Each structure stands twice: as structure tokens, then as C-alpha cells.
């Protein structure tokens, strides 16, 4: 006979406000099987937990129900409590009377009644609980970082520093990411490349780090501690080991009309190219869409001039598998397309540029050699208008509902740099709000206004259009209540940022969840910000939400520390709440295998002996180390053979019965 104890938590006034906790505890006393029922202000506190432990011993409890917050919050806490008192930790059930009850009900009577029903359901379930034993699985001591921007580089460096091997898979021919494209960084105005490229070199020279560039992840299987990842390394048509990065091939290449991705398409590059001077690996790559030799068979100039003999037109994609204990997503961002924002004239005038394009124009290694000139005619501009929130904080559906977070600061930076280098240029900035929370950020913005005389105008722009060789910027000045029509030589749009499009496909492969904006979801928004809800998958940088460089680096380090914590273990305790097949009932139909997202189910021919049965049959078998206990197979199984330990069909039906009684 089970002896159940019920512990109702007040959670301060969180639960005790809308729920009469004493009545809940009182009502539970008359439920069959319950031998003890009590309340306490904070059950998760040390005192609360020791009360549970004392009660377990005093009343010889065989099962515990804690009526408190979501099991995501404290199930583990109370399982450990029970274990310390000598009870099997899986004999604990949580009735969620906070998130699913007190927080959503205002009527105390309704809230109390619902809390009682939820508690009764939990008792009905715990009556059928069986003690479960957790197993262990080994940890592969190698990490995979997907994305080679500053987030991925920093995560990899930190993991390698702790002595673990780590691979960076980067989709472009070089690591460096967006930060490599930036000119200066706020709020100190130090050169972006000067602080990034040493880190890139560190990563390349670190024995523990393997940079797999121009590659993408194709398939992920396995589970925390033991992932198997298929990686496709795209053909460069250049032997990475032989190429010295001398650049002779680029000088000779006759196909010069490729869009230079690194310069945001502001100028052209050759078909064989090295993305930028400090690229890592410093190895050429051939764009097969543009290469004459690969397209028509005629040319071969680069092969002839390459003294290292590195060119190989027959090179093919290389696909290989590797094992990892942990995976870090660091897929970064891109600025949004401006197709839905025709009012800003981006498609009509070359002199309307995005902020990232402006960054390249201002950069000494950029298409204009760092000279601020208009893309249309190469003339020096005298009036520049910056427009913030282009597609950010946009509820019209054309853009993004969120704040892109970095635009206020980089626009202030651009404005300041222009005024510093070219005092003859007038700079205007249209803004909704200026948001500068960050160390030395507001001081930086004020410097732009007070010291550099940047004209900040509160209001939005309705239209930008070319008139003659000028651009007319129509906007409103909300503070002065005026409609403005400014004549500008250049307009710079602070386009919203969005997650890199590759992230969605990756999320599916990793079974990591995403929010409605395609940012990766963290396991807990406050307390577990660098972990994805999928065990063994971690998040670094903007793929989790908009961030500037310092925040990205901080999060990258945090993600690395989580990875190191995982890789430091030799074995992981596995979740015993996994599926189990009742071989007597299984008819080997294969439906469970098809729905299993983890590949945990296989089939064996087995002799089955039971009442009136003795035959060799094909039956399902679950690999408990791989199964994550999602339950997809249990609801799919037509014969009811699949059951989830700790969440059996019987237990769930008992809960439903208790609620409906």
C-alpha cells in the first residue's frame, strides 16, 4: 500500500494569493493513499526541503506530491530532496499549481478548486509510480561549433583553452563573420579587424581547433555526449594544403564580374578569390558559377600561374562523419532584405545604402579605400541622412517586431566618424528612440550630439526619392511638429538584423526550438540563457537574439563554460523515463520506428513466450541511451505495446480520471 505525502507551497503570495493553500492541503487529507498533507511558504527553501525529508522518514512515505511551480523549475530539486531522505527520486510528482493555476486565475474559489483537482491528479499518478534507476552513457570529449564569426571563434578558443578538441564548421570560405566586415567598433572606436584577426589567427594556430571552412552540417543524430554529425565540405577547386595564398591567380583571372560578398556587393571580385586579406584559411576558392574553366572548359589561367600547383578543377565535395559530445550553434545574423521597404528608395538610388554597406565604404580595405564618396558618381557628399529602425520595431508586418539592439549605437558611431573625418559634412539622424543601455554607451551617443554636432531628429521618414543628383528625405520632426524635406547626398538605412537563414534548417537537425522570429530559444530565458532546451546543444551569439560584440563575446564564453562542464564528465546520468516495448503485445509493425526522432528504436527477431504464445517474431527494441522519452512512439503504437516509464498510459489515464471525477 502506498503512503503518499502532499506538500503545498505558498510560493510567497504567488500561489497563496489566488489559491487557498490551507484548503488544498486539508482537501488532500481525505484522498485515499494520502497519509500526510501540509503547507509551507517556500517549499524549495532549505527549511521547506528538510520538512519534506522529515515527513518522508516520520510517515514512512512511499511517494511525494509537491504542489508548486512548473516541474521545469523545481522537479529536479524535489527529486534530490526525496533521494536524500532515502526515497527513489522518481517517486516524486509535481502538481503545477502556479503557472497553470494561480498565475492565471483571479477568482480565489476557482483557483482553489483547480489546485485541488491538479493535486488529486498528481496523487493518482504517483500511486502508480515505480522506482526507476538512471543509467549512464559515455561522453565524447570533442565539441562542434557551427559558425565561425566572433561568437563561434570565442567559444572554440575557450573550449580549446580548457584542453578539449573543438571543430569550427563555417559555411563561407573564411572565418571572421560579420565582425570582419566592420570598420570601427563602439564605444571605443578601435578597429574591428585589429581586435578580431588576432583571434582568428589564434584559432587557426591552436592545435585543439580544427577549422572546417566552406562547409555545412548536413545531418545530426545521437544525443548529449554522443552526437554523430555529417559534414559536407564544399569543393574549393583549390588544394587547401598546397595553396600559399599568394594571390597570383586572382591577378590573372579574366572573369572579374562576381559580386564581392565581403564588400556587400559594392564592387566586383574575380572568379577565383580570397575573400579578404586576413582571411583564414588564407586559401583561394573558385566560384563555380563564375569560373570560365568550370563553366565552359576554356581558360585554365589560374592553374598555369599557380606555382604551388594547388588548382584542382576536378575537386569534389567531401562528406564525412564526426562524433561530438556537445554542439554549439553560433550561426549569427544578416541584415534583412529591403524589398518590402520601397519607400526608402534603396532600389532606386545607389546613394541609398545599408549601414553594413556604409561600414565597407568607411573601411580602408573597402571598395573606396576608406574614402567617403557617393556610390553613384564618386563625389564627396555634403549632407548625409541616417534612418534608424528600418524594419525594426515594425508592427506593420513588413519588418521585424523586435528591436535590433545594435543600430542606435552603430549609427551614432557612423555619424561621429563622418563628422570627425569630414567636418564639412552635415549629418542628420532620424530615430524613434535612442536606446543606449550599455557600459559607456550613452556617453558615446551624447558625444556624437554634443561634441560632434550630429543633428538627431525624433521622427520617422516616410519617403526617400531621387531628385536631380540629390535625394529628398521626407520625414517628420515630432519635437518641433514639422514636416521636413531634407536634401541629402547619401542616405544610410539601419536595416534590422535577422537570424542567418541557415539557422532554421540547423534547428530542425538539432531538434532545437526557435521562436517566431527564428532566433534559437534558450532553455530558460533568465537562468539558462546559453543552453538550448535540447540537452548538449548550446547557443552563442546573435543566433539566440540581437547582441553587440561585448555581449556576444560574453555569451560565447558562457556557452564554452557549459560545454567544458559537460565534456569534463566521463559519463552522463541518463533519464530513466524512456520508452519500453512490451514484447508480448508488439507485432513489429515498424510505426514507432518511423516516428522516433532520435533513431532509438530497432527491431529484432526474438522468441516470444507468453500465455498461449510461443513463436519467433519481429519486435521493437528501445535503446535507452538514445531514447529521450518524448513519447511519440507510445501514442503511435496501434497495439499499445509502447509505454513510457514514469509516464505510462495507465498513469496518464489515472490522472485524467482523477480530474474528471
Amino acid at each position, binding site marked *: 500500500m502506498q503512503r503518499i505525502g502532499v506538500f503545498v507551497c505558498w510560493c510567497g503570495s504567488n500561489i497563496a494569493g489566488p489559491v487557498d493553500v490551507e484548503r488544498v492541503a486539508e482537501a488532500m487529507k481525505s484522498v485515499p493513499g494520502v497519509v500526510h498533507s501540509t503547507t509551507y511558504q517556500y517549499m524549495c527553501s532549505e527549511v521547506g526541503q528538510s520538512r519534506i525529508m522529515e515527513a518522508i522518514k516520520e510517515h514512512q512515505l512511499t511517494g511525494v506530491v509537491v504542489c508548486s511551480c512548473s516541474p521545469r523549475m523545481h522537479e529536479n530539486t524535489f527529486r534530490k530532496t526525496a533521494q536524500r531522505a532515502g526515497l527513489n527520486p522518481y517517486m516524486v510528482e509535481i502538481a503545477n499549481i502556479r503557472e497553470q493555476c494561480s498565475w492565471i486565475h483571479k477568482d480565489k474559489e476557482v483557483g482553489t478548486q483547480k489546485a485541488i483537482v491538479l493535486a488529486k491528479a498528481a496523487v493518482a499518478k504517483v500511486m502508480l509510480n515505480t522506482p526507476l534507476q538512471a543509467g549512464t552513457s559515455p561522453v565524447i570529449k570533442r565539441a562542434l561549433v557551427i559558425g565561425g564569426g566572433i561568437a563561434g571563434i570565442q567559444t572554440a578558443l575557450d573550449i580549446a583553452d580548457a584542453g578539449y578538441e573543438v571543430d569550427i564548421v563555417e559555411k563561407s570560405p573564411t572565418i571572421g563573420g560579420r565582425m570582419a566586415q566592420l570598420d570601427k567598433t563602439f564605444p571605443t572606436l578601435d578597429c574591428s579587424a585589429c581586435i578580431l584577426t588576432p583571434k582568428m589567427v589564434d584559432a587557426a594556430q591552436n592545435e585543439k581547433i580544427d577549422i572546417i571552412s566552406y562547409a555545412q552540417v548536413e545531418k545530426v543524430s545521437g544525443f548529449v555526449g554522443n552526437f554523430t554529425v555529417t559534414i559536407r565540405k564544399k569543393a574549393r577547386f583549390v588544394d587547401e594544403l598546397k595553396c600559399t595564398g599568394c594571390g597570383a591567380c586572382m591577378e590573372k583571372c579574366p572573369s572579374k564580374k562576381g559580386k564581392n560578398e565581403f564588400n556587400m556587393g559594392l564592387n566586383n571580385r574575380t572568379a577565383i578569390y580570397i575573400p579578404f586579406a586576413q582571411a583564414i584559411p588564407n586559401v583561394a576558392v573558385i566560384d563555380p558559377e563564375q569560373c570560365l574553366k568550370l563553366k565552359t572548359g576554356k581558360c585554365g589561367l589560374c592553374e598555369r600561374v599557380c606555382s604551388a600547383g594547388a588548382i584542382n578543377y576536378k575537386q569534389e565535395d567531401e562528406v564525412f562523419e564526426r562524433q561530438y559530445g556537445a554542439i554549439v550553434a553560433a550561426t549569427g545574423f544578416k541584415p534583412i532584405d529591403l524589398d518590402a*521597404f*520601397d*519607400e526608402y528608395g534603396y*532600389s532606386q538610388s545607389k546613394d541609398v545604402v545599408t549601414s553594413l554597406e556604409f561600414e565597407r565604404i568607411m573601411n580602408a580595405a573597402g571598395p573606396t579605400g576608406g574614402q567617403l564618396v557617393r556610390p553613384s558618381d564618386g563625389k564627396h557628399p555634403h549632407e548625409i541622412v541616417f534612418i534608424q529602425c528600418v524594419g525594426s520595431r515594425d508592427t506593420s*508586418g513588413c519588418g521585424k517586431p523586435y528591436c535590433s539592439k545594435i543600430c542606435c549605437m552603430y549609427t551614432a558611431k557612423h555619424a561621429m566618424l563622418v563628422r570627425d573625418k569630414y567636418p564639412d559634412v552635415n549629418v542628420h539622424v532620424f530615430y524613434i528612440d535612442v536606446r543606449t543601455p550599455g557600459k559607456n554607451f550613452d556617453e558615446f551617443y551624447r558625444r556624437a550630439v554634443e561634441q560632434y554636432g550630429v543633428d538627431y531628429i525624433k521622427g520617422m521618414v516616410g*519617403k526617400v*526619392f*531621387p*531628385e536631380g543628383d540629390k535625394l*529628398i528625405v521626407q520625414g517628420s520632426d515630432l519635437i518641433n511638429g514639422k514636416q521636413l524635406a531634407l536634401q541629402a547626398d547619401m542616405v544610410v538605412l539601419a536595416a534590422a538584423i535577422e537570424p542567418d537563414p541557415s539557422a532554421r534548417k540547423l534547428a530542425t537537425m538539432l531538434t532545437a526550438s526557435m521562436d517566431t522570429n527564428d532566433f534559437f530559444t534558450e532553455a530558460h530565458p533568465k537562468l539558462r540563457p546559453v543552453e538550448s532546451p535540447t540537452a548538449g546543444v548550446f547557443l552563442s551569439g546573435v543566433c539566440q537574439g540581437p547582441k553587440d560584440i561585448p555581449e556576444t563575446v560574453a555569451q560565447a564564453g558562457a556557452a564554452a563554460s557549459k560545454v567544458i562542464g559537460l565534456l569534463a564528465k566521463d559519463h552522463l546520468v541518463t533519464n530513466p523515463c524512456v520508452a519500453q516495448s512490451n514484447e508480448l503485445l508488439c507485432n513489429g509493425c515498424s510505426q514507432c520506428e518511423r516516428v522516433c526522432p532520435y533513431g532509438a528504436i530497432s527491431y529484432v527477431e526474438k522468441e516470444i513466450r507468453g500465455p498461449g504464445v510461443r513463436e519467433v517474431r519481429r519486435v521493437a527494441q528501445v535503446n535507452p541511451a538514445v531514447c529521450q522519452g518524448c513519447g511519440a512512439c507510445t501514442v503511435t503504437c496501434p497495439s499499445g505495446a509502447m509505454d513510457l516509464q514514469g509516464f505510462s498510459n495507465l498513469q496518464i489515464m489515472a490522472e485524467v480520471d482523477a480530474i474528471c471525477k
Partner: protein
Amino acid sequence: MNYSYYPGCTLKTKAKELDRYARSSAEKLGLHLEELEDWQCCGAVYPQAEDEIATKLSAVRALAQAKEKGGKLVTLCSACHHVIKRVNLDMQNNEYIRTRVNNYIAPDAPYAGETQVLHYLELLRDELGFEQLKKSVVNPLKGRKIAAYYGCMLLRPAEEMGMDDPENPKILEDFLRALGAEPVLYPYRNECCGGYIALEDKGQARQNVDKILHSASLAGAEAVITACPLCLYNLAQNAGKERLPVLYFTELLAEALGVKEEA
């Protein structure tokens, strides 16, 4: 193909040419426009109030009648099109309005937005096709540089009107190309002309008109076309220094099709 046709009040008074040329052109193109019986004024302004149904009734009466007669209703005046199209969407999507309007009008069968509302330009683009229109042109308007003026009612709100991109529209330009004319692109073609405040703030209306006509003439236009009677009135009446002939788009259509004199 037969279409129900809703001309609207202005087309019977101030904007007779808009209507006349549209009818003769349609006839020439084999599009049969049948004027609705006993149609009433659409109200000219789409009522924004959620609980307002009285001003939506006449639009629904026209829509319900068109449903009986083939289900396609052609409009011409920008304001009428705007009101009728949006009221039709209300009848499709807003249960509260649909129920109350049906209770009030009590039609034989309840009306739930089944009629397809087509602006005359959409009739040409989507039903006939500009390619087909091009083939029917007998007097191509060769070398004529024309500025299309959209106004605000025809395209906005874009998700409801569904005609074209409000920031960078092209339906009138494509129409002009089909007639053999040369469309002139200018930035003010989709800005409000201020017609709605012409009585209250003539200065503002004049300022808007000046900007539009100046912008069109700077781009080399010799004339401006529009689909909106109020825009035409305002662009003609409140023009200051900058003056350009303002025509209904149907007038050029009739001219190109060789039916202008008959009309």
C-alpha cells in the same frame, strides 16, 4: 464576359467623361458592363468605426445584387472602389458586421462577401490582360510622355486593396505601355494630393498639388492621368504655378482604342 458595373454618383455629374470613355472602351474590348439597378451612393468614405453599419449598407446592397448577376462587380471611381472593396472584406471576415448587416437588409440569401470586386484597371490587367489590350490599340500613343497619378485611395491599405505595391506601383505604368505611351516615373505619384482637405485647408492642398505637378513635369511629363475624380478636380483647381493637363485614364484608353469621338 458580363460584369456588373457600379459607376457611383460623381461619374453621373462631375466625372461624366471617366464613365463615358470607360463604357465605350469596354464595349470595344468585348467586356460587357451592365450597370446595377437602383444603386445608391457608396458614401465616399470608408467608415472606420467598428459599430457603424448604416454607412456600409449601400455598398452591401450593390455587392449582393452583383452576386446574383454573375459575381463580378466592376468599379471605376477610386473612392467607390475603396469603400466597396473594404466593406466586402468586412462582410467576409467580420462576423459582427456581417450578422448585423444581414439582419438589417434581410436579403433573400445572406451575403458574406462572395462577390469579387474589380477596379476597371484590374479588369484590364487581370481579366482581359494588358497584352490583349495592346493588340486592340488602333491609335498607339507613341511618344506621349504621361505621368500616372495614383492618389491614396486606390492602393492603400495594400493588404486590403490588394491591387499593387503602394510604394512602387506599376499597374498604371503597364497600362500606359499597353497603349503605346511612355510612362514617366516620378516620386510623388503615390502621395496624397490633399483633395480631402481642400475645403478646410486650401493652402495645404495647393502645396501638395504643386509638389506633385512639379515633380511630374520635372520628370518630363506632358500630362497626368488618374482614376480618381477628386484628385482630378483638386489637381486642376488647386494648381499654382505648375500646370499640366490632368485626364482620366479612360480618356487615353478611348483615344488609343479609336472610340473617343463616338463616346
